[in-house]
């Protein structure tokens, strides 16, 4: 019998709410076949359920606990994550508390040896980074799910076993009122780094585990420093190692430090060790304010991925699919991109407007993204936690040079999470881009007016973007739209015109050609964006037959 801990978790700033277990219809003898079962009500599972609901696909989300996650966990959300969260309706709520930022500082021997500002384009609604504790994101997603009749959130329900994975899935679940089995057409495992679904299938991840453990500790303290990334290299109190500090909302700071070689997690979490080290770090920065410990945990840096995120009717997303070094904010941010990539494809497969191979393209695109992230993260990891004598010597030489030789500064670059460009996606077609976003890359947001951006208008649909002097009055366009809509394909047309006075969605005025320039789009050209806002084709001249063919390719229905 599964008995989740039903006492609210302790926190200095967050008020945990208990979501009591409620017996499932299956436990009263009702058998239903759910279109989608999602295991894990973390940010990725919840965002996926909300994204599926945008297409009208119902899901049941199964969560072993009866409250949101313990401790702040993921605290930095990228611009791309905010854009994805905007689509599922929680970005505005997040922005009420989140702390936006864009600068990172590397500090060695008390000197700032490198400072980097992540680029910010005034056409973007969101800043490069936003700090907010994961519990709040989960809470906002849960509240959004509760408003959504297509989503059933089952708390206190633990995944035990996958009983079937053939023309449907069947799961054995355990609850405070005993076990039951649940039938679904699809299962998405969003059950985290220790994924029970992954273990159940006996799947192994490829990649590397780096040596070295890190402590993350959240403290309540009043520090008068801006919201920026602070990385301290080789501090006197922790020789050879790296310490990170981040401001979180609600008067909390995150400290993240590497442990001396050979020290166990148990030793590291001993109060005298923990308190002594946190105080030593604060002393070094010159902070004498009182503080209290809120939460702490130990992690190791890993860079691993499953080689395939699809196993018949079981799909993996988020940490269940890959484990990435967290100091480039790559965990939740990568997972949110997974969920956004998967949602429309799964919806299309279920509703019949997309082919089965679409789900293989999910794996293709997202495994590719994970491998690219692992490659990039490897560089940062080798600098932050040198894996060998040679790497340590080079890192130390770089630190020493950094005090007087600015040319080594870029070696401190922390390479944060960014949106992956699906350049080799099987869903891409059309002409090559000379300028503007490449085929496979995400769209670029455009500021249309005060607090009005292009992405605010986009929903879960394909968008054909036409660039012209004035709106096209082409009967073929309407016919194409009607034909696609009859097949259930969500498809919209946006026209960006130089000869318009004002915006009247889906007509956008572009009198000075600013939008066209941003997209590298000449008069008469056309771009096709997928429902996840990634470009899948572009043409220098609009040709409706080619557009229709590109949509079939992007839907995995070209054969």
């Amino acid at each position, binding site marked *: 019998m599964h008995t989740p801990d039903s006492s609210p978790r302790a926190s200095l700033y967050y008020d945990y709410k208990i979501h009591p277990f409620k017996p499932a219809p299956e436990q009263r003898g009702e058998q239903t076949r759910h279109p989608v079962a999602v295991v894990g009500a973390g940010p990725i599972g919840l965002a996926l359920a909300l994204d599926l609901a945008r297409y009208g696909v119902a899901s049941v989300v199964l969560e072993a606990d009866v409250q949101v996650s313990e401790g702040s966990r993921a605290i930095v959300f990228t611009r791309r994550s905010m854009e994805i969260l905007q689509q599922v309706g929680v970005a505005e709520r997040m922005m009420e508390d989140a702390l936006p930022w864009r600068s990172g500082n590397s500090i060695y021997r008390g000197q700032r040896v490198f400072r980097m500002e992540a680029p910010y384009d005034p056409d973007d609604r969101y800043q490069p980074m936003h700090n907010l504790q994961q519990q709040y994101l989960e809470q906002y997603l849960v509240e959004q799910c509760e408003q959504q009749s297509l989503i059933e959130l089952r708390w206190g329900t633990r995944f035990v076993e996958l009983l079937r994975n053939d023309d449907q899935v069947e799961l054995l679940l355990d609850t405070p009122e005993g076990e039951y089995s649940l039938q679904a057409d699809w299962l998405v495992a969003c059950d985290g780094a220790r994924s029970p679904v992954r273990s159940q299938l006996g799947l192994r991840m490829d990649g590397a585990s780096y040596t070295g453990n890190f402590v993350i500790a959240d403290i309540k303290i009043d520090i008068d420093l801006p919201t920026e990334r602070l990385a301290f290299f080789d501090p006197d109190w922790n020789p050879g190692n790296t310490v990170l500090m981040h401001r979180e909302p609600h008067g909390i700071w995150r400290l993240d430090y590497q442990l001396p070689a050979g020290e166990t997690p148990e030793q590291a979490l001993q109060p005298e060790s923990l308190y002594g080290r946190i105080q030593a770090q604060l002393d070094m920065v010159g902070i004498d304010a009182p503080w209290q410990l809120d939460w702490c945990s130990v992690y190791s840096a890993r860079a691993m991925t499953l080689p395939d995120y699809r196993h018949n009717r079981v799909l993996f997303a988020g940490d269940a699919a890959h484990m990435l070094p967290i100091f480039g904010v790559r965990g939740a941010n990568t997972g949110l991109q997974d969920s956004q990539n998967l949602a429309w494809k799964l919806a299309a497969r279920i509703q019949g407007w997309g082919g089965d191979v679409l789900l293989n393209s999910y794996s293709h695109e997202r495994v590719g993204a994970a491998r690219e992230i692992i490659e990039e993260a490897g560089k940062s990891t080798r600098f932050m936690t040198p894996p060998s004598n040679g790497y340590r010597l080079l890192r130390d030489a770089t630190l020493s040079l950094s005090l007087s030789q600015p040319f*080594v500064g870029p070696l401190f670059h922390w390479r944060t999470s960014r949106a992956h460009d699906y350049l080799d996606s099987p869903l891409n077609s059309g002409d090559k881009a000379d300028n503007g976003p490449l085929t496979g890359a995400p769209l670029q947001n455009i500021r249309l007016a005060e607090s009005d951006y292009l992405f605010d208008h986009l929903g879960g649909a394909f968008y054909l973007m036409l660039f012209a002097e004035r709106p096209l009055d082409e009967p073929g366009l309407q016919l194409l739209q009607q034909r696609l809509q009859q097949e259930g394909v969500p498809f919209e047309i946006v026209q960006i015109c130089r000869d318009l006075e004002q915006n009247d969605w889906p007509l956008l005025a572009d009198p000075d050609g600013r939008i066209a320039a941003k997209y590298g789009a000449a008069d008469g050209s056309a771009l096709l964006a997928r429902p996840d806002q990634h470009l899948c084709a572009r043409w220098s001249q609009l040709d409706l037959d080619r557009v229709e063919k590109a949509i079939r390719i992007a839907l995995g229905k070209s054969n």
Partner: protein
Amino acid sequence: MTEQSKAEAMAVADLEQVYDALAEAIDRAGEAHDRLFLTKLVLLLANRCGDRQAVLEAIDAALQDL
């Protein structure tokens, strides 16, 4: 002319001067810091030289006959 051949073309007197200066600098760095010093020096020279291929070839050459 590649960087490598430029280096080979260094006059004997100049090379001798570099030889002495490097030896004395290694001694000044001391056993505790000589490896760090040499690594810094390579990074500095690599940056001055600006020729990735020449540096990679020099790394290979230096690894021979250890």
